[in-house]
């Protein structure tokens, strides 16, 4: 796959979208659909989580089946913060990112020494270990998860209102996407994509491939942790569901639907999947069948195949 290059119309389009999102909450209030502000926030949060996976998978070329571990860890850190008196998001969110990043560091340092299908499996193993670790502790709520007593405050601003949380999530997503966009074009981004496309050549050129990959993996983990902390605020619960391998699968599906390796792949994928769910569930309960068929269709009939988007499969 070639290096990521933003389309010419991308920047104006994104700015327009941002403006539309800024007026969304008041518009929804006016239409009496205030409930959907929470739904929109959910999309933003999953867009962030999927983008963090896109960084690892699409740009870094690392097929991690354990990304949910970092997502869930962020949520639990947020819940623990609330439990222990840290209710300021300006403290809790960076803490969630740090913990998730550290977890990714440990997992990555070990996993990235393996290749191919073994890498896939070992990330899965670590994600499951994280799940059982979190579920085993009574203090973390066991199977029921850890509830948050309320929403956090961002500096002085309370996030209790749905609108406030929406704008915070939007702000985080906008910052992260700007960062990722810059990263993709910068030397780090070029290098990591080059490693994805041809690892042997980059090794031969003397690049510390392992280190680049690890940094990319940790970054992805930290960003997933941020998304998790936001989600915990939205739902009021750090649930063990967030750590399960099926959650990793869902994030993967989002990235693939949206476009692996495209900057906004995660965003688009999250938007499509969550909107599809909301719309279809009104028509038929069994909308999952449609989604499953769509996934299979993507695999079988995608013009260049999913592999072409992904580049050479090198673990």
């Amino acid at each position, binding site marked *: 796959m070639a290096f990521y290059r933003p389309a010419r119309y991308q920047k104006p389009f994104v700015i327009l979208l941002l403006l539309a999102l800024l007026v969304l909450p008041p518009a929804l209030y006016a239409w009496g659909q205030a409930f959907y502000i929470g739904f929109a926030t959910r999309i933003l949060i999953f867009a962030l989580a999927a983008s963090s996976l896109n960084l690892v998978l699409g740009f870094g070329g690392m097929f991690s089946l354990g990304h949910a571990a970092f997502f869930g860890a962020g949520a639990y850190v947020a819940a623990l913060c609330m439990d222990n008196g840290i209710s300021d998001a300006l403290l809790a969110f960076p803490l969630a990112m740090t913990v998730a990043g550290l977890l990714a560091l440990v997992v990555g340092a070990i996993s990235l020494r393996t290749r191919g299908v073994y890498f896939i499996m070992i990330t899965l193993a670590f994600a499951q270990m994280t799940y059982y670790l979190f579920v085993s502790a009574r203090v973390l709520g066991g199977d029921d998860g850890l509830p948050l007593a309320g929403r956090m405050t961002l500096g002085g601003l309370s996030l209790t209102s749905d609108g406030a949380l929406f704008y915070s999530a939007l702000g985080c997503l906008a910052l992260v996407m700007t960062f990722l966009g810059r990263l993709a074009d910068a030397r780090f981004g070029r290098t990591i994509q080059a490693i994805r496309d041809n690892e042997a050549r980059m090794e031969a050129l003397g690049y510390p491939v392992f280190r680049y990959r690890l940094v990319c993996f940790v970054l992805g983990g930290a960003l997933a942790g941020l998304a998790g902390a936001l989600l915990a605020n939205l739902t009021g619960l750090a649930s063990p569901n967030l750590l399960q391998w099926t959650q990793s699968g869902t994030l993967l599906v989002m990235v693939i639907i949206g476009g692996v390796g495209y900057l906004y792949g995660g965003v688009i994928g999250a938007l499509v999947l969550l909107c599809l769910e909301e719309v279809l569930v009104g028509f038929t309960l069994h909308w999952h*069948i449609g989604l499953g068929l769509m996934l299979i269709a993507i695999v079988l009939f995608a013009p260049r195949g999913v592999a072409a988007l992904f580049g050479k499969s090198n673990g």
Partner: protein
Amino acid sequence: MTQLVFEQALNGLQFGLMLFLLAAGLTLVFGIMDCINLAHGSLYMVGAYFVAAAAQAADSFWIGLGAGVAGAAVLGLVLELSLFRQLYRRDHLSQVLATFGLILIANEAVRMIWGAQPLLLNPPDALSGPVEIGGFFYPAYRLVIIAFGVAVAGLLYLLVARSRVGMWVRAGAANREMTEALGVNVQGLFTAVFVFGAALCALAGGLLGPLLAVQVGMGESVLILAFVVIIIGGIGSIRGALVGSLIVGTVDTLGRALLPTLLRAALPADAAATLGPALASILIYLLMAAILFFRPQGLFPARA
């Protein structure tokens, strides 16, 4: 005390052997066709549903078991010819995506046909009580399951180690291209392996149905354990699948039985009951990670 050890050992054996039925099919598909099949757990679930439905219709467990396994084999054939044949050439990401989609379809289809509530499946009346073995008691039905597991293990051993088909299977697992070049009908072999795997899944599902429950989503949790087993044992190796499943079965049972008792010395009963099984699971995944790190090809590597 000896009764306790004896009973728990048999429990671990029973669990391990059922895992083996699942892992055997999975390891062959993964080993020979290099295909990650996340829907393997769904084959187990659908197989269990077929058995339960047939058993209810025929009012007989054994007929239900036979019919269910046959039905699952047919389903496996259909899936292989239509979908999986296309997936072999694809990369792992595509396979994960497609089989994930298959899981969604399977869960929803089952819910549509049989409803959201679990199906009832009872063991044969003759086997619903205990047997006495030298002064010890053990549920008769579980013994039958163990017998089935041992029989399948024996059959697979004979098949894989002593038959021509088995030789092709081993060759295919070791080096697919070479096997193809040597003129073996690899396409047909793949189909046969897949169908056989599906039948084994259904057998496991049908046998475990009376003990557990035939319900939507029953495949997901067991699928992960099957992957753990084949990684530990070695992808493509039947022997590895057997050893791996016995290890996992034993650790899990010991974890549920022994650990809470040990932990109770330090923790209140309910905390110990939460921590015990979780620790056992962590141990299993730790073992899996260790194998992947130090000896990725597993305990009994099949690949050349």
